Each structure stands twice: as structure tokens, then as C-alpha cells.
């Protein structure tokens, strides 16, 4: 995607010249002739870089810069002054307003393009460095919202596929909670939102879910619908999570009888591949988004399994597709692809490799959990 640059200058010739050269170099350029127009455009169209003239008739570049600094959505956009006044005082004033730099209007155009490219590259580098540092800290604190190895029970094997979006962690969270040799809970949630914000809250949801499950089990309660309601109740009253919502699929494996119970909160259907019929059956839960209502209306379904049956839990990132430039969320397309792969009788890694290949459209982190009866 090309980087967006906003040019602000009251002189139309100057604007057109710069626009042409920057566009030739692959940038998407918007031009305006006043600060007023610039602020209007920035309300709906955030830019990667702003280059502004200083001397303009109605409102000057310094005033523009001050206004940007007061706006939390706009203050971090890299900003350059473009000026014909190479007077130190002007430049000092500009740099004091946290402008990255200034460009003299007499600068040859080749140098201007080079400078713009350098600045944008430096911004990307700095962002990647910060993300890398955050990740290192998260690793050190052992903060994980997805298990890093598969789970092997007597009668079941549980595999996890989880793919982050452009290397950013996201809101999907997964957990296996083994109660004893007989019972294991499988958790898949998706905090609404993306990247770091959603990732951060996923730990709060996970903590609540783990404690609610443990407390219910201590009380002898193994009903997934009732456990869901307990989780829902605490999240509903937590002010910290007031504006944060999550979906949840909760599954309990009874490794002795081979039966599975399932409850969900605004999650996608649980999918069951019946090996004998080479077909996929959907189990839709009834529960509503965690914490939105005091009572989430959770139901519970018992899902029988025989050897070679496979159950799948998915997050919404798994069913985003793009065809001819049009994005689509389509469970049907995903089901078709999954069925095609399953009928080849291949292992989990091969299935995910084939479905989530580089051609698969992805805007979000996506997760797929397979529970296979062995």
C-alpha cells in the first residue's frame, strides 16, 4: 500500500509540482491550500506524512502544527515544514513544535524525495523496533494467550493453529484447562478489536475464564452453560471491561466416555467432521456476547464422537476472504475448503498449510482448533 502524504501550501504551482514528483515516486498525495482545508481532510483521512508551508494568508503553518499537536489522533503524524525562509528563527520555532525537520523550498526536488523516503523509512523502523521490544517483554513475562504445543489425551488429540496478522499479536486467545485425567476444558475466545489493544485484554478474559472454570469445578459443577453464565456475570459487572467485548467457545472433553459438551457466546459454529460420512455438521450455540447482558442466554449441547471424528473451533479471522478486490466474511467458503482437505485424509498441519496459505486473505489474527477422536 502506498504511503499517504498531505501537502499544504497556498501556492497552487508549488503544490502541483510537488504532487507530481511525489506521485511519480509511488506516494499517494493529497493537496490543500489552507490549514482549514487540511484539518477538514484529516478528520476522515489520516496521513502518513504532512508537509506544510509556513507562510499562508489566513492561518500559518505554526498555528497548524500547534493544532495538530493538540489532537491525539493527529499529533504523531510525522510533520515537515516547507519554507522559503531559511531564517534560523523560523526553523527554531518550527523544530520546537516537534516538526521532524524542515525543507528549504530551494532544495532540489531529488533531495526532497530522498528526504521524504528517509523519514518514512525511519518511522517504520522505529515502529518495528518498539513492537520487537514489547514482544521481548511479553515473552520474558511468559505472557501467552495461545498454548505452544498440542494436547494428547487417551481418546483425543487437540491441535492448534494460530496465525498472527502481520506479526502483531491479536485478540484471539486459546487455553487447555486439564482438571484431572477425565475432564479437560478447551477455550477459544476472540476479543473484539485488533492488534495490541485486543491482545492486552485477552489476558483479563483468560484470567476470568480460568478462575470461573476452577471455582465451578470445585463446587462440583461441570455444566459448560452454567460456567459460561458465571464468566458472563463477572465480566458484565467489571468496569475495566466496560467497553470491551469478547466471543467465547467453551468445550468440555470427557476422556472416559468420549463425550463432549459445548457452549458458546457469539462464537462461530462448532464444526464436526463425521469421518464415516465425509461431511461437516454445524453446531450453533445460542449464547450472546460475553458481558453484554446480565444473562447471556447460554445453552449446552452434547456432541457424541466416534473414532476419527474431528471437531473444529474457529475464530472469525479464519473465514475472511477476498475475491476480485472485494472482502467477504464467508463461513460457506471456509467449510468447502475444509471439507475438501479433510476428505484427502491428511494431517492437521497439512490441512492448515493448505487453507491458510499466502494467498488466503487475512486482516486479523485467526485460529483453528482441531479435537480429533483417536
Amino acid at each position: 500500500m502506498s504511503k499517504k502524504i498531505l501537502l499544504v501550501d497556498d501556492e497552487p504551482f508549488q503544490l502541483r509540482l510537488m504532487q507530481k514528483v511525489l506521485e511519480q515516486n509511488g506516494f499517494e498525495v493529497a493537496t490543500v491550500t489552507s490549514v482549514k482545508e487540511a484539518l477538514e481532510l484529516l478528520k476522515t483521512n489520516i496521513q502518513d506524512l504532512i508537509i506544510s508551508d509556513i507562510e499562508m494568508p489566513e492561518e500559518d503553518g505554526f498555528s497548524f502544527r500547534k493544532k495538530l499537536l493538540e489532537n491525539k489522533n493527529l499529533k504523531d503524524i510525522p510533520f515537515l515544514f516547507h519554507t522559503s525562509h531559511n531564517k534560523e528563527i523560523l526553523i527554531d520555532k518550527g523544530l520546537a513544535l516537534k516538526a521532524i525537520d524542515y525543507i528549504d523550498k530551494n532544495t532540489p526536488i531529488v533531495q526532497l524525495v530522498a528526504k521524504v523516503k528517509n523519514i518514512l523509512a525511519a518511522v517504520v523502523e522505529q515502529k518495528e523496533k518498539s513492537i520487537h521490544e514489547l514482544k521481548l517483554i511479553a515473552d520474558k513475562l511468559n505472557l501467552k494467550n495461545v498454548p505452544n504445543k498440542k494436547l494428547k489425551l487417551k481418546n483425543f488429540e487437540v491441535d492448534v493453529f494460530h496465525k498472527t496478522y502481520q506479526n502483531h499479536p491479536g485478540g484471539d486467545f486459546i487455553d487447555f484447562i486439564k482438571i484431572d485425567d477425565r475432564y479437560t476444558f478447551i477455550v477459544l475466545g476472540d476479543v473484539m478489536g485488533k492488534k495490541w489493544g485486543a491482545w492486552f485484554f485477552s489476558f483479563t478474559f483468560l484470567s476470568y475464564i480460568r478462575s470461573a472454570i476452577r471455582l465451578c469445578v470445585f463446587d462440583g459443577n461441570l455444566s459448560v452453560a452454567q460456567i459460561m453464565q458465571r464468566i458472563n456475570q463477572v465480566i458484565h459487572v467489571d468496569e475495566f471491561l466496560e467497553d470491551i467485548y469478547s466471543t467465547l467457545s467453551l468445550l468440555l472433553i470427557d476422556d472416559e466416555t468420549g463425550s463432549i459438551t459445548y457452549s458458546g457466546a457469539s462464537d462461530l459454529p462448532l464444526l464436526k467432521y463425521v469421518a464415516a460420512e465425509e461431511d461437516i455438521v454445524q453446531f450453533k450455540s445460542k449464547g450472546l456476547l460475553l458481558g453484554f447482558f446480565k444473562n447471556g442466554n447460554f445453552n449446552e449441547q452434547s456432541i457424541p464422537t466416534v473414532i476419527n471424528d474431528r471437531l473444529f473451533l474457529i475464530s472469525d479471522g479464519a473465514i475472511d476472504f477476498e475475491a476480485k478486490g472485494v472482502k467477504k466474511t464467508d463461513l460457506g467458503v471456509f467449510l468447502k475448503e475444509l471439507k475438501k482437505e479433510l476428505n484427502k485424509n491428511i494431517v492437521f498441519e497439512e490441512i492448515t498449510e493448505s487453507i491458510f496459505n499466502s494467498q488466503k486473505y487475512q486482516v486479523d489474527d485467526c485460529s483453528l482448533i482441531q479435537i480429533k477422536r483417536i
Partner: protein
Amino acid sequence: MDYQQKTVDNVLVVNINLPEASLNQSEDFKKYLYDVTTETSPKLVLDMEQIKYMDSSFIGALVVGLKNVLSKGGEMALININADVMALFELTRLDKVFKIYNNLDEAILALK
């Protein structure tokens, strides 16, 4: 403008002009919804005709907006939802969370 508003029978009707409603607009949209529902018992209809694709961040913003409206004793409805978006709403039971109508007339009749 991404959002155009008009008032019909004391109900604020907002047309969301976004073919793709996603993470990039969700924060801005959440703030917009707060800004237009400052009065007590706000009545709001969101026209979603232009939206062809919606991601979970934007749905999150809609849910937060709804909660805010409900906490003020108001009402919020969605109209003209595209078939793909509606399928996602139904799959995730969000059709039970929001009031959804086929068109503006039905929504106004229900809300006014």
C-alpha cells in the same frame, strides 16, 4: 464525509458511507456515536446500506455504541444490512443484540 446525518420524526438517522468498515474507522466511529448521543434517551438509526464488509473491531464499536445508547434510556436500530454482513450477525447472534429493520420507514415506526 464518512457519516451523514439527518433527523426524521425526532430520530437521528446516520448514513455510514464506508464500503469496508474495519479497524481503521472503528475508533473514530465509536467517538462519533458518543458525540451524537449526548442527550437523554437518544433515538438513533444507523443506515448500513453502503457497508459490504465489516470486521470485528467495527462490530465492537457498534456494540459499545448500543450499550451507551441503552444506558441513557435510548434506542438504536440498524437498517439496510447487506446479506453478507447479516449472515455474520446471524451466525454470531448479534441479530439478537441489535434491533434490525429492513428499511428506514419500519425503523422510524418502531422508534418514534
